Structures are given as C-alpha cells and as structure tokens.
C-alpha cells in the first residue's frame, strides 16, 4: 500500500470507524485513539487488501475487537462499571453488524449530499426531512421554482448512484427469500 492509498483509506473510513468504536465505548476521544491504533497497525504490518469489501470487513472487525478489549481492560474497569449483562449484549455479532449497516448507509447518504452544490444540498436535506416544496422555499428564502429546479438538478446528479445501488436491492432481497 502506498501512502496515497493509505491516506485515501483513512479519508474514506476514519469517521465511520470512530462512530463504531464510540458505540461501544461511549467516549469519542478514546474511540479516536482506538481507530488510530488500528490504522497504525495496518501500515506497520504492511497489510494488503484484495478489495474494498475485504478492507472494510477487516477494519470494522479490528475496531470492534479493539474496542471490546478496552472495555474488558483493567484501566477501563477501574473507572467505569459495565454490567455483565451489557457487556454480553455488546459482544454479540448482531450488535456489531446492525451498527455497521447504520453507519455505512448514513455515510453514503452524507457523502452523496455533500458532493452536491451547496444550494442543492441544503434543499435536499430539508426535503429528506419531509419538508414540502413551499416550506423549503420559506425556510431558505428562495422561490418555489428555484426549489423545484434545484431538486431536479440534485436527482439528476444522484441518478447514477441510485441506479447502481438500487440494483443491489433486488440482490439483497432475492438471495434471502
């Protein structure tokens, strides 16, 4: 892995991994340390990944394991108390996977919106919060027509991503039916 590839991996996943670790630790600063440790390790061990899914699987799993290690460590136990029942719950696979789904899905949404021009993005954010066209126009102090045109521009831009990912819906559903 070149440092360029390493940086782009960091850019892509650092925030998501911090969110995951924070779910376990409920302490964002410690979560950041845990994730940085994991990034340091993949650099030092010169780990090469086959594809992005493998990379994500490795990083999410490592962050989960490191976070659980921390929860079980003496340092943590001396300052916080975690009930045996809660620990049992956070150690389950489903606690981990459902969080990954939430983080991944919301990260895709955020990135897609952030890539839109500012005005477009602001309109789409409100639209996703179930604001009507006229409510959006009021809120942002623009005309109803502007809102309509900007929405069209936004969806034109989002179309390729939506089409690619919609295809996966059938995939997701069919496989498990």
């Amino acid at each position, binding site marked *: 892995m070149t440092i360029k590839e390493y940086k782009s991996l960091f850019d892509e996943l650092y925030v998501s991994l911090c969110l995951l670790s924070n779910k376990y630790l409920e302490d964002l600063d410690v979560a950041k340390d845990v994730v940085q440790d994991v990034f340091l390790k993949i650099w030092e061990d010169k780990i090469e990944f086959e594809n992005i899914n493998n990379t994500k699987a490795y990083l999410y799993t490592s962050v989960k394991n490191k976070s659980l290690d921390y929860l079980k460590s003496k340092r943590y136990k001396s300052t916080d108390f975690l009930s045996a029942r809660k620990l049992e719950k956070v150690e389950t696979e489903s606690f981990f996977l459902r969080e990954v789904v939430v983080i991944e899905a919301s990260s895709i949404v955020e990135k897609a*919106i952030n890539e839109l021009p500012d005005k477009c993005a602001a309109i789409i954010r409100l639209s996703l919060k179930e604001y009507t066209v006229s409510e959006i126009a009021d809120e942002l102090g623009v005309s109803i027509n502007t809102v309509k045109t900007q929405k069209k521009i936004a969806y034109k831009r989002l179309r390729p991503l939506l089409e690619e*990912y*919609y295809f996966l819906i059938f995939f997701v559903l069919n496989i498990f039916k």
Partner: protein
Amino acid sequence: MPNFKQIINLSKSLAASFLDKKKNTEIVEQSQLFNDEDKNYIIKNINDDSSIEKRQNLVKQIDKEADWINVVKRIELSNYKFYWRLSAAAIISGVLLTGYFFKDTFFGTSLEKMPIVLNVKPGKEKAILTLEDGSNITLEKGKNYVSNNLNSNGEKLVYNSGANSKSKNVFNYLTIPRGGQYFVKLSDGTKVWLNSGSKIKYPVAFVEGEIREVELVYGEAYFDVSPSTDHKGSKFKVLNQNQQVEVLGTEFNIKAYRDDDNVYTTLVEGKVTVGLEGKKQYLKPSQRSVLDIDNQMITISTVDVYNEISWKQGIFSFEDLTLRDITKVLSRWYDVDFVFLNKSIENKKFVGVLDKNQNLEDILSTIKNFGIIREYRINERTIVLK
C-alpha cells in the same frame, strides 16, 4: 452469519432508497439478516431526524485532518525507533551511519520534529532499449552495448548513420524511467535528449526520400533535427497521441506527460508546425504552443525559452509554477511521490533556478527557506509537505 459483502450491499440499498425518499422498511424487513429488534434499530437510526442529528453532532467533533497528521507523526516515530536500532547496530560494527540521528538524539531535539532522512539522490543516465524482437536492454553507466547498427557506452545511444534501409521500417523504443535521463542520436543524425519518465519510438533507419517519423509516446524530449536539405528534402515529424509536429530542420522541445492536461511545444530555432486533425499552426522561435487535450484547442504565446529547456542543461528553472507542478517535475527526477498535508499550499508559486544535480533534501530546504512550505518530511520515497 451473513458475510460482510451482504452487510455492505444492504447498507448501499438502504442509502439509495433513503435518498430517493422511498420507504426502506421493506428492504430491512425482508433482508432476513437480522432479528426484529435489530431491524427496528436499523430503521429508526437511519430514518429518524433525531438519530441523524445525533450522529452529525458526533461527526462534527471529529477533526479528520488533525487526526491524520497525528497518525503520520506516529508512523514516523516508530520508523525513528527502527532507524535508531539500525544506527546502534552500525556503531557496534564500527560503521558510521549518516550521523543525522546521533546528532539529534544526543543533543536532545524532540523526536517529533525529527525527519526520517534517507538521502534521495538525483537521477542519472538510465534507459531501457527495446529492440525490434521485443527484448529489453538496460543502458546505464559502465555498461557497453554494441550491435551492427547501434552502440552505447551506457551514457548515450548512437545509431549508425548512412545505414538507410530500403525495406520496411524496423522500430526500436527507448524508455526513460523516473530518476533517469538519456541522449540518443538517430541514424539520420537527429539528436534527442529525453527527460525522466519518457518513451520514444523511432525507426532503426529511415527510408530514403520518405518522411522521417518518430513518436514521443509520452514524456518530454528536446529535438535537434538534422536538416531536410541533408536528406533529399525529407521532412521530419514528431507524432504524439494528441498532436503532430512537422519539422524542416530545427531545435524544439515537446512535453507530453500523461499526468498533464496539456501538451507543450517550444520552438528554439528554425520552423515547425504543430498540428491536430486537419489544422496546422506555425511556431516562430521562442514561441510555445499549449494544446489543451480536452478542448483540442491550441494557444500560442512567446515564452522565455530558457525555462522550457533548462532541464537539458541540468537545471530546474521554475518560474511562476505552482508547487503542484513543481512536485510533478521533482517526482520524475527523484523518483519519489509527494503528499500534501494541506491542500492550500498546492497552488503557492515558487520562482527559482536550482541545480538538478543535488540531493532532494537540498531542494526541499531551499523551497522551505522561501517560506513556500512550512515543513517537509522524507519517508523513504514519499515526501510529505505542509
């Protein structure tokens, strides 16, 4: 247990339906990857305004760039430990290493500030010759190579003159890697200087009376073309994927790197035309044409020729170039990659004339002394700038 790809695919389809304002509950319900409690958790956390806001607040508290710098520092620190062990081993065996590490450790400079320095030496005469049968020969100092129509002392390559073949053209390629440069004299006497990261295709011998054609596949080359009058009026043409230059005996420079959006042709002496499909434009001495590859537009202006061809004399002459463009030049000559820690410095401009025959560190410290960059770190073949 579901595999990770299924989890990622589910996330993608949930994101798509959320963006499209369609109900995504059905997708979660039917996915069968989770039990009911987890399904409700996912639906709530993706769709509820309060959950979204909570997450956005957390994201705001994460300073990705600052944390990245932190990771880079920690990598350097661990590299430092590694080199320190190496240096310690060197003392025991009686070999003195660079001295850099000892100075700083013994005089107590903070570790954090210490760069990991490996001397990055300038490029040198180096090329790979590809013969007509596809075999490759490495040309470098100290290696002689002679065949019936060419010879090389390792530092330059010369094709025998007068060996005009009447048969079909036979082509050779010369590839100059990053960190190399080379000089070749073609069979018609045309001299070509090739810059780092370049490739040229040419016939071993030119057919008498026909147009002499060579191709600059990519990269930068300076041509001193043997005049048409010595070759029964045969014109000389330099082809490139994006343009062609027609020549009547003259000196000029072409720069056509693949990571550049433009092709630059600078005429030093004589007369050439620069042509795209169907269009031809004349260049006068000291004029440079810039072809914008995307728009297929050529603009011509008068330039200081020295800046364009100084590379051939062993000098970098940077005038009004952005740091991004300068690092492109340096990365070819020193065979290194640059990483900008903050984007804002990429467009800073630097003016200076620098000797190509010095270590990279000297060049970087000059640029630093001008206040263009605050700091640089050399980490093997990667240079981090900020």
